[in-house]
């Protein structure tokens, strides 16, 4: 169809229809009029015309049918033509489809993660009307109405503190007569608890929820009933709702779970219902196995829980509300913020507190809580940018290959054009070909994406227990993939299509050498590929260097051959003073496992000692001086031997340290140097003020690093105290093993089962994996980016190779003349390579400044590496130049082998 008619028809379809109608009617009128002229009455004439020609409506219908048929026919024609062409050059088709599949697959995989983290709504009724309640307050200096906090908070703008936890009285105040919400419900993380079903103990994650929780979310049970307001009262019969997955694991299905008695941390509960299969609570980062009524924490968590309810200055309960119909988020904010302000002002006790009151903010709750978004959105955007670049390189590459082919087909196109084929028709045909290529790539890309999602889930979850981030290929993702494929096809097909159908038909037919502009386009595409590949190479270089720096951070303790696991004897029912003997005996039995050279225990692993587990966290004094910033580490005998932390003076904690003997401490070197400068600390005292206890310093250990590898002080001050002289809760054991630590897990389970079958072994992990967990993002980035960089480099080199080959082939005549005139082979090789280097130099000229500014975006992911790290830039440049020379050498060599006579004859 020619463009003018298509344009007219698209611009005004009704007019085109009316036009057709009038045209046909005028035909019938003419025929009728002619018959009237022959002497018939108008009625007769009309009747005969209709009988002969059929009704006009049918004629119009025929025209429309013909049009549809014509369009359909040409599409089928285009497709058939495209398949024929691709079959004619299978090498090109395979390279193009494979590289597209990689590019589209990578984008699909990353996008499916973004979809699941950033875009997907909670699987509950009408998620759009859910609202999360947060507060933000000025930086916490000099006092706060938050006298106590139990829960998460995170940094907001301008150093503000942001959180979603509130005192219980605030919840009650907001719940009563709320003008904006139809329901307000609360919940808080119950962390892991021991669940005993049919005498079998396992660790499960729990969530305490208020009575309005399930009603507010609008979910219905898979079996039984859900928790309601009557269950959430002090003294109510303890009931629990179990997740669908847990009902399958523990009871063989939802129906088997309802009505069953269970024990949660030794407290009897009755399972009254099962949550629906897709339901995971309100936080996509967590998936509780067990939902308990809020007030049952009085039974499970003991006396401390009772103090939480009346305290207006203790922040712990998270809240969500459901907007009343017709109330907007802004209206709800306007209604509730002053109410909260009034309430919170009354809880302030000093002027400083009154000046720094937290302010209520409402956020959309459709996607649940934002913890995953906060953690993963930036890494995912960076990854998406990278796979986007790779796809762009791929598209540029295929456009380039198509341009080369378009040159070969120019005669054919010129012939078709001169024979009257519309330019639009020819362009459409070429686009059909490229879109078909892209669709094949997209279809294959889905397979790559499935694989990519699996490996990415593996990388992201690296060692994290309870990993809940599950991306999937849903219709939304597949739709985006399909759209992406078509856009790619149009993108890389359009330039070649327009180029090869330029109206300057005559020179092409005469086989004149052409292509000033086309070669320019090819050059631009190669330069763009080089520039984009460089960006990815730099990113990979930065992340690899970061990982390298992190891995060479001195730890001060052993990383390899150590097995860690956690036991909680107190939850299994052991009490003081028997519990310390129980723990000590277990240690000895672990140490007797063949292959275990030493075993020890501590309140938490070294990585998490600063923030996890029960230890002394109050004030300390060294003589008259307060000790600032030291961590108390509750450790068992042979701790330093097992961890290979050198003892510089005195001794480590050992079996001599008994509950009855005098309390001892081992301090780290930095603490000794800071508070006992120029003195021998051995025999001196360190005081735990809150415990009113003096500990005698019996040893000094070398410094070691606390916490993760990032941003932690390399020589934090530590005070080791003996487990036997401390009332411990859960303890983390460490076994120094010969060979792979995980080989000993079975023996550990066996020993624990003999000691107390109701006590589960949890958090089983090697020390190396525990350390790597703290840098899992960095490891993931380094691995992925290296893969991406190799891919980008490969594609860019294929592009360079293809372009240079094409140029050499086009210039065969010129090169032949030069050689006939006496040019040396070396000079010819250099002529081609010089062009390669010029293209690379142009790419780098664009890309180095771009890399310098773009790398600022990933600054927060780097460690001990500057975003403009010269080594990373230089390395990326060197790799790129060598790869380019490699890619350009084959065509250059081919150029130097051109036979001048043959080339000239061809000309």
């Amino acid at each position, binding site marked *: *169809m*020619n463009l*003018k*008619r298509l344009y007219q028809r698209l611009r005004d379809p009704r007019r085109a229809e009316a*036009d*057709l109608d*009038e*045209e*046909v009617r*005028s*035909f*019938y*009128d*003419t*025929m009728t*009029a*002619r018959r009237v002229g022959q002497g018939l009455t108008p009625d007769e004439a009309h009747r005969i015309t209709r009988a*002969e*020609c*059929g009704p*006009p409506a*049918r*004629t*119009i219908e*025929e*025209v429309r*049918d*013909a*049009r549809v048929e*014509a369009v359909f026919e040409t599409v089928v024609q285009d497709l058939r033509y495209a398949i024929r062409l691709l079959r004619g050059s299978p090498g090109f088709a395979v390279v193009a489809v494979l590289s597209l599949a990689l590019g589209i697959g990578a984008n699909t995989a990353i996008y499916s993660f973004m979809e699941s983290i950033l875009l997907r709504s909670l699987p509950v009724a009408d998620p759009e009307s859910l609202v999360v309640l947060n507060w933000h307050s000025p930086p916490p200096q000099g006092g706060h109405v938050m006298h106590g906090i139990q829960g998460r908070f995170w940094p907001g703008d301008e150093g503000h503190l942001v959180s979603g936890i509130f005192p219980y009285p605030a919840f009650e105040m907001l719940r009563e007569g709320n003008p904006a919400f139809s329901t307000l419900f609360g919940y808080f993380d119950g962390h892991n608890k021991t669940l005993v079903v049919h005498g079998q103990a396992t660790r499960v994650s729990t969530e305490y929820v208020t009575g309005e929780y399930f009603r507010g979310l609008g979910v219905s049970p898979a079996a039984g009933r859900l928790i309601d307001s009557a269950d959430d009262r002090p003294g109510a019969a303890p009931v629990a709702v179990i997740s669908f997955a847990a009902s399958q694991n523990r009871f063989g299905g939802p129906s088997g779970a309802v009505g069953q008695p269970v024990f949660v941390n030794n407290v009897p509960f009755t399972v009254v219902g099962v949550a629906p299969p897709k339901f995971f609570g309100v936080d996509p980062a967590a998936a509780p196995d067990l939902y308990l009524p809020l007030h049952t924490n009085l039974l499970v968590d003991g006396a401390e829980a009772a103090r939480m309810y009346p305290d207006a200055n203790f922040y712990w309960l998270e809240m969500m509300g459901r907007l009343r119909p017709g109330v907007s988020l802004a209206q709800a904010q306007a209604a509730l913020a002053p109410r909260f302000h009034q309430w919170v002002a009354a809880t302030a006790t000093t002027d400083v507190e009154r000046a720094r009151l937290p302010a209520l903010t409402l956020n959309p709750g459709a996607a649940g809580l934002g913890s995953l978004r906060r953690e993963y959105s930036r890494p995912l955007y960076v990854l998406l940018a990278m796979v986007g670049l790779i796809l762009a390189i791929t598209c540029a590459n295929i456009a380039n290959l198509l341009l080369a082919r378009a040159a070969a087909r120019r005669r054919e196109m010129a012939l078709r054009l*001169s*024979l*009257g084929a*519309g330019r639009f028709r020819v362009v459409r045909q070429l686009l059909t070909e490229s879109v078909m290529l892209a669709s094949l790539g997209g279809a294959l890309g889905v397979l790559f994406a499935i694989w990519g999602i699996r490996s990415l889930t593996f990388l992201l979850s690296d060692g994290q227990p309870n990993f809940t981030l599950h991306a999937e290929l849903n219709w939304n993702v597949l739709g985006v993939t399909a759209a992406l494929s078509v856009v790619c096809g149009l993108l890389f097909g359009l330039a070649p299509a327009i180029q090869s159908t330029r109206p300057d038909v005559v020179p092409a037919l005469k086989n004149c050498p052409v292509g000033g502009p086309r070669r320019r386009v090819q050059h631009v595409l190669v330069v763009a590929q080089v520039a984009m590949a460089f960006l990815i190479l730099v990113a990979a270089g930065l992340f690899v260097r970061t990982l390298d720096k992190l891995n060479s951070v001195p730890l001060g303790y052993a990383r390899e051959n150590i097995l860690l696991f956690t036991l909680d004897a107190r939850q299994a029912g052991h009490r003081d003073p028997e519990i310390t003997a129980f723990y000590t005996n277990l240690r000895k039995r672990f140490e007797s496992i063949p292959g275990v050279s030493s075993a020890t225990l501590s309140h938490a692993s070294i990585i998490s000692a600063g923030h996890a587990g029960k230890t002394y966290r109050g004030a300390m004094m060294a003589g008259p001086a307060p000790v600032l910033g030291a961590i108390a580490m509750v450790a068992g005998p042979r701790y330093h031997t097992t961890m290979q932390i050198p003892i510089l003076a005195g001794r480590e904690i050992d079996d001599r340290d008994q509950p009855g003997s005098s309390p001892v401490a081992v301090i780290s070197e930095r603490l000794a140097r800071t508070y006992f400068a120029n003195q021998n600390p051995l025999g001196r005292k360190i005081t735990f003020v809150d415990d009113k206890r003096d500990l005698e310093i019996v040893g000094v250990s070398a410094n070691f690093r606390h916490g993760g590898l990032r941003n932690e002080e390399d020589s934090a001050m530590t005070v080791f105290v003996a487990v036997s002289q401390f009332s411990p809760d859960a303890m983390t054991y460490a076994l120094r093993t010969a060979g792979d630590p995980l080989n000993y897990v079975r023996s550990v389970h066996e020993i624990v089962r003999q000691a107390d079958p109701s006590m589960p072994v949890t958090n089983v992990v090697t020390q190396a994996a525990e350390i790597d967990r703290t840098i899992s993002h960095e490891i993931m980035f380094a691995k992925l980016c290296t893969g991406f960089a190799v891919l980008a480099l490969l594609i860019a080199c294929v592009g360079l190779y293809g372009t240079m080959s094409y140029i050499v082939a086009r210039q065969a005549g010129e090169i032949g003349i030069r050689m006939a005139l006496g040019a040396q082979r070396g000079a010819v090789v250099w002529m081609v390579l010089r062009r390669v280097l010029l293209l690379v130099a142009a790419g780098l000229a664009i890309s180095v400044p771009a890399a310098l500014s773009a790398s600022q975006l990933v600054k927060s992911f780097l460690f001990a590496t500057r975003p403009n790290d010269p080594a990373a830039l230089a390395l990326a440049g060197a790799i790129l130049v060598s790869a380019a020379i490699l890619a350009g050498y084959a065509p250059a060599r081919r150029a130097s082998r051109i036979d001048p006579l043959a080339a000239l004859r061809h000309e």
Partner: protein
Amino acid sequence: MNKPAELLQGTLDLLILRTLELQRLHGVGIADRLEQVTKGVFVVGPGSLFPALHRLADRGWIEGEWGELETGHRAKVYAITNAGRKRLAEEKRKWNRVSFAVNQVLAEES
């Protein structure tokens, strides 16, 4: 009304192009002209004529324009385009080859 067979459809295109090569005509005029020239062998009804006209116009081989007839009726008058002339030349060559070949075969058989 018989729908023309595939060969006939192509033939109709050829005949319309040829007719319009000689003069601009409206729908009725083309039908009359074909009937007259082929001495009644081809009687083209509007059910085949208009689809063919629109197909040719869609491809840019002919162009229609509204005009007034001597009788005072408004009608769309078609004219061949340059692309149409080229197409006609090609179709003519093809047709000559085909008809020559077919005639050969038929002559041999009798």
